[in-house]
């Protein structure tokens, strides 16, 4: 082998070393594809947008721009706080709401308990989606105690909290979408020319002062919020 033919060896060795280094030390989850909500119109509520948060890139999760809204219930006069953060994980086993607190303290939940809901999202579509939400108390602080409801909304309208539920739904959505996609699109995804599976969902949290009727008002607001937000989510 002469000097000229050793040249590609040296280049590919350098590229392989860079690749190994990057995989070990610079591995990160890709950014979510979910777009920011330009405005939120919720029937029965006056919506006031609050300060938005920055994007965050991490090894296991990456977060899109977080958005906060104050929802004023016109019927009861109660003020709720809505937090929306798109999340994308590198793999399906890391995606669960309980881990969100590691990366975003606003998701902290004490005395967490799961609730299964079902709601009709869109009369035209006539879809009854299984929704799993976590409810609990906010952190102990000097301020008035708060009650929180959180879940991760996915394309198709299903919401889930646990890894098993999120994984099951995203996996089925992915397979259904792949089955519908033309052969060329599937080939493009295989070769990496188009984005492949996205382990992504929209983390949503509603917060209310811990007063009588708080849980009911959170569930009522959740039904409205989920109905609006899932439509903008693209299939994985």
């Amino acid at each position, binding site marked *: 082998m002469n000097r000229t033919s*050793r040249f590609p060896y040296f280049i590919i060795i350098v590229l392989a070393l860079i690749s190994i280094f990057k995989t070990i030390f610079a591995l990160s989850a890709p950014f979510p594809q979910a777009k920011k909500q330009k405005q939120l119109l919720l029937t029965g509520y006056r919506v006031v947008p609050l300060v938005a948060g920055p994007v965050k890139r991490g090894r296991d999760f990456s977060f899109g721009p977080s958005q906060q809204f104050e929802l004023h219930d016109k019927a009861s006069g109660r003020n709720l706080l809505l937090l929306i953060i798109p999340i994308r994980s590198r793999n399906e086993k890391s995606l669960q709401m309980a881990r969100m607190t590691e990366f975003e303290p606003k998701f902290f939940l004490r005395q967490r308990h799961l609730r299964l809901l079902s709601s009709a999202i869109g009369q035209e579509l006539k879809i009854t989606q299984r929704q799993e939400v976590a409810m609990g108390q906010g952190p102990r602080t000097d301020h008035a105690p708060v009650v929180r409801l959180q879940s991760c909304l996915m394309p198709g309208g299903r919401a889930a909290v646990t890894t098993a539920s999120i994984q099951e739904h995203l996996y089925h959505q992915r397979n259904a979408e792949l089955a519908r996609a033309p052969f060329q699109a599937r080939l493009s995804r295989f070769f*990496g020319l188009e984005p492949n599976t996205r*382990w992504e969902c929209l983390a949503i949290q509603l917060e209310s002062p811990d007063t009588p009727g708080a849980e009911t008002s959170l569930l009522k607001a959740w039904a409205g919020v989920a109905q609006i937000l899932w439509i903008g989510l693209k299939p994985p």
Partner: protein
Amino acid sequence: MINPLRIKRFLSSINVSLWGFLACLFVVQNLVLNFLTQSNHLDDLTLIILIWFGAWLVLPSSQPWRNPHPSTFSLWLGFTLLAAALWRGHMIYSLEPASFFLPLLSGIGLALMVVPIREMKHFWPSLSLLALFPILRAFLAITPQEDLARLNAQLVRIMLLLGDGTVQVDGIRVSLPGGGVSVLDGCNGLSTLVQLFLVSTILFLACPMRHRWQNTVMLLVAPLIGLLINCVRIVFLAIISSSNWPNKTWWFDQLHDGLISLTFPALAMLLFLQMYMIWLEKQVAQLEEQ
């Protein structure tokens, strides 16, 4: 005075070292990528280690990498394939089928950087093993897990009955007086079966038996040994679960997914290798007698 032979040997050693180093880098890159991106990484990692080890074991005896002589086309084609494998690896996320083809792509690229295309046939055993990874991975995904779990439960019942045990099997549930176990998807021994099959394939390519039927028998016996050893593990789990031992929870956890559980696939592998070696030695002895 400079000895031309020494220079030639030194340059030859650089060539060998260069290709060997490159091959090692791609094996490491493959392993690291799989471990850090795939959620089922332990099972896949074992398979990848086995296929790369097997591919190395069955490399051509003529050792063409000692004197690489690729054509210009094959050299740059190999370079392109390796670069493509690195590029695609950066966009791999969990459960992407493309990740199963990266070892094969890397293997073809490495071979092309050593020999021209017309001599690629010398590498077919190694490339066959690398091509086995997506096939085995697809097999793992499509095998009906519950049927295999039921088969495990029935074999466990037979083993317990042979030991005069009172046992009832209902689907995947094995019940003994005082307790029982359910053979769930992750405990049906499928990954052990596949690993044993892979080992038998490596042996078939590296040191095959004299006759075709003997090789076929070994390919079939290997996964069977894996299945039986897994059933032995489930027998122990069922006995522990139904016992009154004070530390039974600890023993159960260790045997279920702790360190002790890892000894069973290793035991199955050792058993199969021992069988293979004994049978191979008999054939060698017969040949020498003839």
